């Protein structure tokens, strides 16, 4: 046991004697967590009630009618966008200079056409290939839909009335339409039902849409710890090429002791890194890591074992330091991305979700979300932890089978 600890400690000391290790161990994971968390915020978090963080959209009202004003009023209630009134030239300048998500023009005659029960167009200019564009477009369509519904109801009401008795003149017809339109708007303001979202009592949800930092912290933890632990491959290749493994074996040390010490040292590094990222996530980014410390600990340990075992296996495949380094980066980044560490798996196609169940990163992310978001305890994450331990056993068995000391 003492030899195992000595070998493990020696590896850790050598690794951290290079100050650059700290950059990958701690600095970059924290930077990435912050940037990804901020980047995902708009996709995840409900708008802060104390700050208007909706997308500003210049609106040019060339119609200047009661209906166009009503439409802008509806837009101002949007949770996604904030209409800002401009003249046409100024609006175009602001849209281009500030790279805004849209520029809306309500053309002259908009209200008149709607009141006549005719289709009325809105001109929306948006940047191409921009993630904000769809949300802003939908918000404008939703507000337009409310006006459209009221106008259609009023139009139908006019038609029904006309079947019973023709209108005296166009003015009477228009007045009837206007009356129906206002009544419809009032009735539409009183929906017969609302949808109320509830969740399990264990759920750790801050907002309806969850927290971007929860996704970012768990995802970045999986990515960077994977780089550290799959990096065991570089350790083994370095030792093999440098002949240090061979030299260790001429001392009275068993092969199993050497291997356990090497793997144990790397695993310990990964566990310490996870602990630091959990603490920083909680204290700096306000990540809620769940209700059950034992469940979180089991998940992290199981993930650590699977990842370091994978590193051991990769170490037997890579022949040179360059190969080990390249494979470590590729396996870590692609594996993390595939497994849901960079984006939530639920937004991917069903076939993709099924295919990535073959990866340990998928089970690590699923288990971590069960702990962090669903607030599950030990019994809730046993299946994921069990599967990760299965991966660990498989990778380790293959790694040891292929392992060569020289």
């Amino acid at each position: 046991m003492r030899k195992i600890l000595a070998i493990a400690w020696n590896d850790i000391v050598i690794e951290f004697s290079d100050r650059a290790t700290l950059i990958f161990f701690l600095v970059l994971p924290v930077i990435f967590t912050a940037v990804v968390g901020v980047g995902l915020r708009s996709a995840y978090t409900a708008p802060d009630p104390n700050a208007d963080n909706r997308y500003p959209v210049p609106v040019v009202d060339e119609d200047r009618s009661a209906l166009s004003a009503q439409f802008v009023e509806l837009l101002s209630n949007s949770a996604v966008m904030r209409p800002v009134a401009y003249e046409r030239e100024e609006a175009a300048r602001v849209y281009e200079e500030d790279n805004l998500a849209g520029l809306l023009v309500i053309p002259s005659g908009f209200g008149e056409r709607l009141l006549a029960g005719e289709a009325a167009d809105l001109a929306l200019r948006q940047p191409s290939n921009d993630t904000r564009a769809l949300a802003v477009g939908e918000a404008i369509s939703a507000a337009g839909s409310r006006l459209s519904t009221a106008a259609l109801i009023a139009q139908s009401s006019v038609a029904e009335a006309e079947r019973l008795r023709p209108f005296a003149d166009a003015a009477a017809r228009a007045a009837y339409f206007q009356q129906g339109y206002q009544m419809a708007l009032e009735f539409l303001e009183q929906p017969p039902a609302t949808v109320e979202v509830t969740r399990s009592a264990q759920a750790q949800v801050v907002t309806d849409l969850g927290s971007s930092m929860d996704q970012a912290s768990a995802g970045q933890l999986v990515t960077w710890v994977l780089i550290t632990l799959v990096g065991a491959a570089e350790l083994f290749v370095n030792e093999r090429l440098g002949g240090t493994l061979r030299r260790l074996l001429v001392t009275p040390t068993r092969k199993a002791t050497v291997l356990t010490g090497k793997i144990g040292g790397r695993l310990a590094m990964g566990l310490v890194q996870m602990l630091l990222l959990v603490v920083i996530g909680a204290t700096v980014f306000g990540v809620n890591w769940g209700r059950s410390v034992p469940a979180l600990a089991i998940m992290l340990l199981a993930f650590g074992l699977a990842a370091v075992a994978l590193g051991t296996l990769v170490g037997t495949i890579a022949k040179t330091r360059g190969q080990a380094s390249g494979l470590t980066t590729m396996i870590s980044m692609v594996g993390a991305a595939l497994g849901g560490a960079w984006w939530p798996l639920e937004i991917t196609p069903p076939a993709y979700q099924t295919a990535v169940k073959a990866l340990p990163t998928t089970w690590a992310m699923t288990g971590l979300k069960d702990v962090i978001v669903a607030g599950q305890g030990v019994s809730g994450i046993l299946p994921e932890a069990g599967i990760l331990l299965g991966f660990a056993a498989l990778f380790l068995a293959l790694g040891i089978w292929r392992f060569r000391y020289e």
Partner: protein
Amino acid sequence: MRKILNIAWKDLISAFREPGVVIMMLVTPFALTLVMGFAFGAFGGGNAGPAGIPMTIVNHDAGEFGQRLVRMLEADGLADLLVVTVLSDDAAARAAVDADQSAAAVIVPADFSEAVVPAGLSQGDTSGLQGAQPVTIELYANPTRPVSAGVVRTVAERFIDVASAQRSAGLVVVGQIVGNRLADPQAMAQQGAAIGHRVGDQVASTSLVRVVGESDAAGQSNFDWLGYMAPSMAILFLMFTVSAGGRTILLERDLGTLPRMLTTPTGAAQVLGGKVLGTYLTGLAQMIILFVASTLLLGVHWGAPAPVAALLLSLVAAGTGWGMLIAAYSKTTGQANAVGTALSLTFGALAGNFVVRDLLPDVLKKASLITPNAWGLDGFKALAAGGTLADVALPIAALWGMAAITFALAVVAFRRQAAQ
């Protein structure tokens, strides 16, 4: 010049002969682009977003609207989006959500239909609407699938909107006819429900307000993940390549091949020029291979070839400048390796190689303009949208400016080292 070209060619060939380098330069960025393409449905003609969302519904409402909600959820039109299981027990539906078998459970109360059309309304009695509070449809959401639960919520709310439109239609039509004494109240009241259905269906399928795309977004309302991620990953891994290229200068020094080269009739400037050109050509070859592979194999549209080529040449020049700068100010290859990798990843994170650039806060977007990644991403985005050389003139100028500054700073440091 021939010596410079010889050194550059040797470095280019060496880079592509090393499997580990090829994995980093070509395999990883291509694999990540491929993964993102699959993840966001770019290969099935589909759009990014959830599909096949498992959900359950428990309908306690024996009336018309509860049944219609169930039928709407099970309709063919939503078959790709939702996989619906109808249950009769609230606890079982909640258990399915807790077991992660379902993204959400919709629980319809017994009085839903009564809330839409209160008793007596079809006989003209509107007193049931006076001060009536809306009933609550419960959506028991799976916290680990917030996006999917949000989709189910949107679908349920859209159904309520249609029901509300139908009710409003009946009330307006009948109310106006009766209020304007166009017909007998009793006779009209009985027609209210039929009118409501007819008008409601029309309202649900028609919109008088049309949103027309004016320019930039015409024909491109959905975000093209592949179009964004292919250049994004290529740029990210270009930075790894150029920082590794700069590192070879230090490696040659440590291995003694650099002093040996200098004992031949080859000047220091020629050696350095060859190394710089070698790094530049390696980066350029990497970008061209990724450009061709993603265009031919993944169908990515990068833009018109001429401006794409101009942008690629500028981007690789700026990247090479950064690679040389890192090498010039590093004392050891280990230091150059660590700083190069850290800087490449940080540049990638700041500029939007990992998260779509549009989503980043303005302060980060502006700060990231010190990176080649940001200018490259902005340029390729403009070109993919049909931009011309004029549209990428600013990114190209900025990248060449960046190349000039970084090269100048690197040369100062290399000269200082040579003097020592």
